[in-house]
């Protein structure tokens, strides 16, 4: 199997996942009890008015037909009309999305870089003071909910030392420039929340890799610690971390809900909360679909990066059923015959690995 087929297959799976997700979202919202038209118009609406609205919303059509229309529309960027404002969903979603990206992208870039570095450092220096400090801080940050981190930051940097505005006073019509002073605190909260998990995964994955035989070989070749870590260990250590990074990046979308709410920041999270509150179904659907898309794209990107990082994935045939289970020969068994202390060493090293957070979806 060539790289190209692997990539194509992976992309195909991603598209299938998106379509399935959109179907789930659509059906789930259809299943919600209550008549949307009735709710919109209130209890005193005349049956005629309700009927007219149903027709204009297309609610009288077959579910599958509506799903098809919706999906085709969504593919063209047409997400329907907001039930609340009466405006098309697309443009307002775009603005909210842009605003969220304004805090999420820097948070992602800083968070991923810093946390991977810290994780690798903690893993390499396992058991020393720097490792304990990094591990402890990440544990605490991970255990305190975002709304608390946000509150504390507001208290410190907006009230005690007023350098940043506590909340955004402008609405969704604010321009990027107007928002700029307000993005810092939300950004910091997002960065912290995301970094804690990546630090822990990167740490445990680094510990695993540092215990592997090829690191011992590199060490006994006379390489310096720096060369061993960055050239030999990091590429392998990053592999298991990639999925976590992808999931965390996707998770930022969930994170923005809380953060944007605390700071009154006009992004996607706030839009999500408002539309849920107002039962603005087309907007909810659009947000869900966009979120799913981001999730899938992030995962796809992680897989493609893994493909680039790991030559084994690139060049080895990975047919799942190439050999039936139970028949896979284990050369390791031969090795185990006489490895003695070396094997025991690897075993304890693996056992010593702390848990890594796989996903927080």
């Amino acid at each position: 199997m060539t790289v190209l087929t692997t990539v194509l297959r992976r992309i195909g799976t991603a598209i299938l996942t998106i379509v399935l997700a959109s179907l789930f979202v659509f059906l789930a919202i259809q299943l919600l009890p209550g008549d949307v038209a009735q709710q919109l118009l209130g209890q005193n609406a005349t049956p005629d008015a309700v009927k007219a609205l149903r027709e204009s919303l297309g609610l009288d059509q077959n579910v599958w037909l509506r799903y098809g229309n919706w999906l085709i529309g969504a593919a063209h960027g047409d997400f329907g009309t907001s039930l609340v404002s009466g405006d098309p969903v697309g443009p307002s979603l775009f603005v909210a999305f842009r605003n969220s990206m304004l805090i999420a992208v820097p948070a992602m870039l800083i968070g991923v870089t810093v946390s991977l570095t810290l994780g690798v450092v903690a893993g390499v220096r396992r058991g020393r003071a720097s490792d304990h400090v990094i591990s402890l801080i990440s544990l605490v940050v991970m255990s305190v909910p975002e709304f608390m981190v946000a509150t504390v930051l507001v208290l410190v940097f907006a009230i005690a030392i007023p350098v940043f505005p506590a909340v955004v006073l402008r609405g969704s019509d604010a321009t990027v420039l107007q928002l700029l002073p307000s993005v810092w605190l939300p950004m910091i909260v997002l960065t912290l929340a995301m970094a804690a998990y990546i630090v822990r995964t990167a740490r445990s994955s680094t510990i695993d890799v540092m215990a592997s035989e090829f690191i011992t070989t590199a060490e006994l070749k006379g390489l310096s610690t720096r060369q061993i870590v960055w050239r030999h260990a990091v590429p392998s250590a990053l592999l298991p971390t990639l999925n976590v990074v992808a999931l965390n990046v996707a998770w930022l979308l969930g994170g923005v809900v809380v953060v944007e709410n605390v700071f009154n920041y006009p992004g996607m999270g706030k839009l999500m909360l408002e539309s849920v509150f107002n039962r603005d179904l087309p907007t909810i659907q659009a947000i869900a679909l966009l979120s799913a898309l981001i999730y899938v794209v992030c995962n796809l990107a992680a897989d493609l990066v893994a493909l680039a990082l790991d030559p084994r994935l690139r060049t080895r045939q990975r047919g799942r059923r190439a050999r039936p289970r139970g028949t896979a020969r284990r050369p390791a068994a031969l090795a185990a015959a006489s490895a003695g202390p070396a094997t025991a060493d690897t075993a304890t090293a693996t056992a010593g690995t702390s848990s890594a957070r796989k996903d927080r979806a």
Partner: protein
Amino acid sequence: MTAALQSSPLTRFRGRLRGWTTPLRASTALSIGLGLIALHVVLALLAPVIAGHDPVVTDSTNVLSGTTWSHWLGTDQYGRDILSRVLNGGRYALLVTFLATTIAVAIGTVLGAVTAYADNWFDEVVMRVVDALLSVPSILALLVVVTVFDSGLWVIVLAVTVVYAPAVTRVVRGAARTVITQDYVTAARARGEKPLSIVFREILPNVLDVVLVEYAMRASWIVLLISTLSFLGFGANPPTPDWGLMVQENRTALTVVPMGTLAPIVALATLVIGLNLSADGLSKALGIDRAQQGATS
């Protein structure tokens, strides 16, 4: 079945007990973690006895008081005793977390083991569905469900289950796939055992350690998720004592009565730290490498 041939039940029990407590002695993280969880459970169970005040009774004459003899942590803006509200706030959180985690992990475990063993179209379909479910942000799914069905206990439990069972399925499936390559599973297949018998006898007992770690970890997520929901105003309704809700209510008075916000946060954080430490300690004690399993799933 025919386990005890020579040894008496008592020695067997002792042996088993020793087996269970070995990880405790091996890992301080696990001891502290389980200790924190136990503390929370005890406090939640005994809350009505030790709280001293009704958590929902307001007292307009005694608003935003600091620490006093009758109110150790002071009162909030409605004059409610903060300590009583914190103690009682844990009950709901723990109950929902326990129920939701148990159901989600149970479903995920069985589904993960079965799909891993099936390794056919069924596996393929389940995994695509799992992927699709995972791609919708959990907070959005919960918000929608809660808005529509109201935030009753079972609604939240079921919603959390639907949100988290897919993730558990994926992790357990990854672990089970490594178990399946072991010779004892091959031996069972060669004997002609039924698939379900293989799943329950051979595979499930050997992914239990992974499941245990998964349980502690998911629980910590769920505690945070539920408090977030309350914080956003979609969870517990006022005046129910709830940690997330308390933070939301007292946040504005943070500088006046810091205890109103800090107490529930400390309670929440210690519970989550307890769960996280347990997950860490368990995986260390049981020799599970989650990073690797993630890579194979």
